[in-house]
Structure formats: structure tokens, C-alpha cells
């Protein structure tokens, strides 16, 4: 079948490519993807041209995760990425990299009211266990939480409280965590001035935290004015986090992530542990090599290419194909792009991990798609795009963009020939999915087809549900099929 052919093509391609990785990486400024594109062409025939983009996608996905490049080589990622992700179609007129996958029309999506305290309480047994986790997550995904519920519900969403814990278990956990917190807090509190003189890292963390606390959300009531207790809490939690994870310490942007959490928790210890959980998700963004940022930018470009390859090509022609202008969005999860209240909504929706993995990347796609026309019509260049995107801050309608991103997720999930790379990013099984290259790399063709049928049988219920109107139901099934 044509699909089997594709499997073989992609895999053999990856093999030959992996052999040339070494040489490619040795070059200081390799045009990696350019070469990736060129090499297969010279080796193979024109019939590859149609799957080029496919290879592209799977390569780009596997690049940061499976190809562990030494830090020194990764250091100048963007330098690599700028020439690397640039696809100059003029250079190779015969091989246009355009995916012709029809995603169909974007479905209409509506949102519901925020979850009320009553709805939340109804879904809890007498000992305080959450009864139907998937259901409540669906509700939160579709409408968010009413503000009074946030203080409790966020602890579950962020993973501080286990969903199946009883009230008593949670109280015990909190007690334990309180002790732990104050033990760590005491550690930095008890460092004398003399000691700190000999501890440059602690000194640097402290000085940065002091500077940033003074300029984080200062227009918010919780942090405004001088000597606001909110500021002291923000400072103390960030300092304690440095003791919790001294290797990472404090990186600018982290105060943005903590501020709404603290605002909702109104409690130092709870805010700290919720922040710890949030940081578990965001850790890679802040690490030395910013691996999380690189991975996300590449993933985003993979998604955007499927969604709108024309727009992608346009961005590439403007030296913006590596989507650097989305850096701030991704680094601190849109914190600076929406009003404080909207961020509370957006984050709780994202924390449900519905309807698919990496939903925040679909939010990026949704925003970019909304701005595409203006960017292209006005023929914005590198600088204008950066400026335009930066200036969207506080102008995006959160509910509109949530609807749009959800609609995109449905389009992708319903897509019959979703590229492997895309299904991996979103963590969904698509109907005609080919097994991914790393599982199949060293295995025979028989193993591959075996894996394929397994995937297909697993995803059958999803396909069956695709036609139904009840999209939320469908998504929960998709979720349950996704291996943890």
C-alpha cells in the first residue's frame, strides 16, 4: 500500500541521514536542513519530493531530543537555526516543500461557563476524593474555573495534590510540605553577610531576584506600592526555590510564572509547592542551553507548517522561519501577552493537558493564524514581524484564541494523514500513523507493520468517534488512549 511505502522511505531515509549527522555537526555553521534536503535528493529520485516535508518534520522533531549534541555545539542554536530552517525555494525550484495535507474546515467551537463551586463539590466523595477526574478536567478545559475555586483546584491541576487523595491525606501532605519549605527557607535566611561574600552564586541569585521582584506585576493590587507583603512573599519563595534547585537557581522570567500562582494561593507554602510543580513543566526553558525553548520553537514550526505552509514559507523568506518572535510566549507561557485575569484562565485550561499534549503550541498557531493576513498583506519583514507580535500584548482575546486553538486541535486529530512528527508533538494517535523512527530504526519491516497494526487497532475508537458531534467525549477517549 502507498502508506507502507512511505514507512519504508522515511525510515531508510533517516538511516542514511543519521550516518551523515556526524559530519554535518562538525561544521561550525552547518546549513543542516539545507543539506538534509539536498542529500536525499541527490541520493534518491524526484519521487521523494512529495515526502520531503515529511522527512523534514520527523527530522526536526527528533533533532533536539534524540540527537544529543554536546552543549558547545548547541550553544548557538539560533545561529544554526537561522540558516538551517531557512528554506530557499528559489535555490531548488524543482522541490517545493509544501505539505498538501488537507486539514479540512476549522470546526466551530464554543466554550462553557467556568466550573462553579457547586459543580466542583458535587464531584467529590465524602472523604474528599475527586470522583471523575477526566470529567472535571473536561469542564475546566472548556470553561476554566470560577475564581473562588482556583485556590483549591490549582493544587490538583498543578500536581501538588494527587487527584485521588482524601482530604486527610492532603492535610498530612501539606503539613509535611510546610516543614520542608521552612527548612529550605531557613537555609538561605541563615546565610550571614560574610558567608554570602564568599558565595557568588547565591549573591547573584539574590540580587537578580531583588531586582525582578521590584518589577513584577507592580500594577496588580497584590504587588503594588512599596512594602507590599506580596513583594516579600514573592522574594522569599524565589529565594527558597534557589535552595530547592540550586543548579537552576533564579532565571529571569521565573517571577512571571510565580506571581499569578502566589496571587491565587495567598499562602507562601502552597504557592511554593505549586510553583515547584509548574517549574517541573517549565524547567527546560530556563536551563543553561535553553533546550526547552529550542525544542518548542522547532515543534511549533512543524505544527505551523502543517497548518499553513504558505505562511511558513513567507516567514522563512523574511528570515523569521525559526519563529524567534514567539520566544516570550513560550518562555513564560504567554504571561506577558494577556491581562492578569486572562492568564489565570489560560493557564488553568493548559494545565488540564487537554485536548492533547502541547496545547500551548496550538495556541501559538491560533494567534499566528489570526495575524497571518496582516503580516503577509503588509509584507512585514523581520523587524516588523517582531514588532507586530510584541505589540499584540494585551490585545488578544483569550476566549477567542482558546476556541481557535481547540478547533485546530480537532482539525489535526481528525486528519487522516497526520504526519508522524505532528502526532508525536501532540501525543495523539492518528489513523494512518506510521511508527516513529526510533522504535523502528533497527527493526525489520515485519516488526514495523506489526507496530502499525497495533497503532491502528488502538486508534480505532478515536476514528469512530471522529464523526460524532460530541468533541469533548472524543478527546477524553484520545487522552485515555495516550500512554502515560
Amino acid at each position, binding site marked *: 500500500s502507498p502508506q507502507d511505502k512511505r514507512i519504508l522511505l522515511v525510515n531508510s531515509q533517516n538511516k542514511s541521514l543519521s550516518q551523515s549527522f556526524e559530519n554535518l555537526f562538525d561544521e561550525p555553521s552547518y546549513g543542516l536542513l539545507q543539506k538534509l534536503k539536498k542529500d536525499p535528493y541527490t541520493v534518491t529520485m524526484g519521487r521523494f519530493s512529495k515526502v520531503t516535508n515529511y522527512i523534514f518534520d520527523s527530522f526536526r522533531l527528533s533533532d533536539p531530543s534524540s540527537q544529543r549534541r554536546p552543549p558547545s555545539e548547541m550553544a548557538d542554536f539560533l545561529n544554526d537555526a537561522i540558516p538551517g530552517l531557512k528554506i530557499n525555494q528559489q535555490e531548488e525550484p524543482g522541490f517545493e516543500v509544501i505539505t498538501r495535507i488537507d486539514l479540512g474546515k476549522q470546526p466551530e467551537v464554543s466554550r462553557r461557563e467556568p466550573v462553579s463551586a457547586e459543580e466542583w463539590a458535587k464531584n467529590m466523595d465524602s472523604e474528599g476524593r475527586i470522583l471523575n477526574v477526566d470529567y472535571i478536567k473536561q469542564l475546566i478545559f472548556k470553561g476554566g474555573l470560577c475564581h473562588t475555586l482556583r485556590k483549591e483546584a490549582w493544587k490538583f491541576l498543578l500536581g501538588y495534590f494527587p487527584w485521588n487523595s482524601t482530604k486527610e491525606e492532603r492535610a498530612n501532605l501539606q503539613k509535611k510540605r510546610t516543614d520542608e519549605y521552612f527548612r529550605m527557607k531557613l537555609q538561605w535566611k541563615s546565610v550571614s553577610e560574610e558567608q554570602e561574600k564568599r558565595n557568588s552564586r547565591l549573591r547573584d541569585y539574590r540580587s537578580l531576584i531583588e531586582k*525582578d521582584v521590584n*518589577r513584577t506585576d507592580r*500594577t496588580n493590587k497584590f504587588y503594588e506600592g512599596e512594602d507590599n507583603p506580596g513583594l516579600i512573599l514573592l522574594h522569599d519563595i524565589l529565594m527558597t526555590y534557589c535552595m530547592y534547585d540550586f543548579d537552576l537557581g533564579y532565571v*529571569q522570567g521565573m517571577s512571571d510564572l510565580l506571581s499569578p500562582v502566589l496571587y491565587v494561593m495567598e499562602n507562601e507554602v502552597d504557592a511554593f509547592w505549586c510553583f515547584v510543580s509548574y517549574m517541573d513543566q517549565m524547567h527546560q526553558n*530556563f536551563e543553561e*542551553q535553553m533546550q526547552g525553548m529550542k525544542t518548542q520553537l522547532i515543534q511549533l514550526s512543524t505544527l505551523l507548517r502543517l497548518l499553513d505552509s504558505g505562511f511558513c514559507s513567507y516567514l522563512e523568506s523574511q528570515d523569521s522561519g525559526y519563529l*524567534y518572535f514567539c*520566544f*516570550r510566549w513560550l518562555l513564560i507561557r504567554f504571561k506577558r501577552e494577556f491581562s492578569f485575569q486572562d492568564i489565570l484562565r489560560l493557564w488553568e485550561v493548559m494545565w488540564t493537558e487537554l485536548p492533547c499534549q502541547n496545547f500551548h503550541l496550538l495556541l501559538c498557531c491560533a494567534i499566528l493564524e489570526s495575524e497571518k493576513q496582516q503580516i503577509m498583506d503588509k509584507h512585514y519583514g523581520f523587524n516588523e514581524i517582531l*514588532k507586530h507580535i510584541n505589540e499584540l500584548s494585551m490585545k488578544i482575546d483569550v476566549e477567542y484564541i482558546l476556541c481557535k486553538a481547540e478547533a485546530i486541535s480537532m482539525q489535526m486529530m481528525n486528519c487522516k494523514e497526520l504526519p508522524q512528527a505532528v502526532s508525536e508533538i501532540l501525543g495523539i494517535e492518528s489513523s494512518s500513523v506510521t511508527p516513529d523512527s526510533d522504535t523502528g530504526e533497527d527493526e525489520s519491516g515485519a516488526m514495523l507493520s506489526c507496530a502499525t497494526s497495533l497503532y491502528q487497532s488502538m486508534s480505532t475508537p478515536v476514528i469512530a468517534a471522529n464523526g460524532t458531534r460530541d468533541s469533548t467525549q472524543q478527546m477524553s477517549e484520545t487522552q485515555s488512549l495516550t500512554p502515560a
Partner: protein
Amino acid sequence: AVTADRAGAASRGSPEASLDPDHLYNVLFVGDSHVGKTSFLYRLHTDYFNPRLTATVGLDYQVKNLVVDNKRFALRLWDSAGQERYHSVTKQFFRKADGVVLMYDITSEYSFSEVRYWLSCIQEGAEDGVAILLLGNKTDCAAERQVPTKEGERLAKKHQLMFYECSAASGHNVSEAMVSLIRLLKVREDELKNKAEEVPKPPQKKKGCC
């Protein structure tokens, strides 16, 4: 219809140039965290001081139009994040910059010591003829000064940089510094043009670098 204000006097708030500038330059702002890069740009843009500006993450971008010596200039100003973690990102933009504003805080010895680091980055990443302005910010905080003006001057002289001290808070020397930078950028542009016109000649060595 452009007001040809003699910006030679470098009066603050030189009139905005209309669209279609005669010259267009990319200028990247670098320097340690919290030295006042964003505040400087805010002052340049609005002529106000905003003490509540958030820390820059990633890269911000603004355009400033100025009329200097009867010519319309547009500056594309890139504002970068100061923390070391983000330097690998910032460095990618040196390549595209015609000018770099290297800022330190006169009340912070540390931020001044970082200048050398940034100079090596510029040398590594930027084009040879890049115009560099060394800018000591926060002259309004004279009582807390840690870096004497002479130190700044000495460093600038050693590396052949343009040098100013300024205050984003008071507005002192903000447009003066930018006007001087524009003039320097213009000189560098003319040099490049002249060089391009004398194509047959072998490129002459003009080097100020150490």
C-alpha cells in the same frame, strides 16, 4: 514638509521624522541586567521615566525616528534581556546590527566589569565596522556612584568607543547620546559606501580593534 530642526544642538525630543527615512540603522542594546536598557528606550520614546518596567525576556523592538543634520533617520532599536542565560539569544542579533549600545550602571561596579565581556561578544559576532556607544546610565543616582566617569572614558578610549553618561530617569544626555550615535552610524555608512565605490582597489585595512 519635514521640519529641519538643527539637531546639532541635540535638543531633547528632536522632531520625529516622517515616514520614508533617508537612513535606516539597526541598533542593539546590550548590558547587564537592570542597568536600564528598557528604561532608556522608554525615555527616548515617550520622554517619560517609568520605574515599573518589567524585566525584558527575549527581545523587544522599537522604531525611533529622528531628524539629525537635516536628514531623516530611523533607528530600529532592539532591546535585549540582560541575564547571562539569555546571552546566547542576544548574540544572534549582533550579526544584523549596525550599531550596539553597550550600557552599564554607574552605581554598579559589576555591570561595568561586564562591559569587557560584551566587547568580546561584539568583536566575535558583529560586523567589523559596527558603531559602539558605551553608555553609563543612572547619573541621577550620583550618591551611589561606583564607577567614576574617568573609568568609563578610559575604557572607551582604549577600545575606541563613543562614550556618554546619561540618566533615563532624568532624561540627561538621552537624546544627545542617540544623536551622536546616529552621526557615527552615518560616518560608518559613508565609509562603507566609499569603499564599495572603489571596488577595483584592494580593500584597505581600516581597523580599530585590538
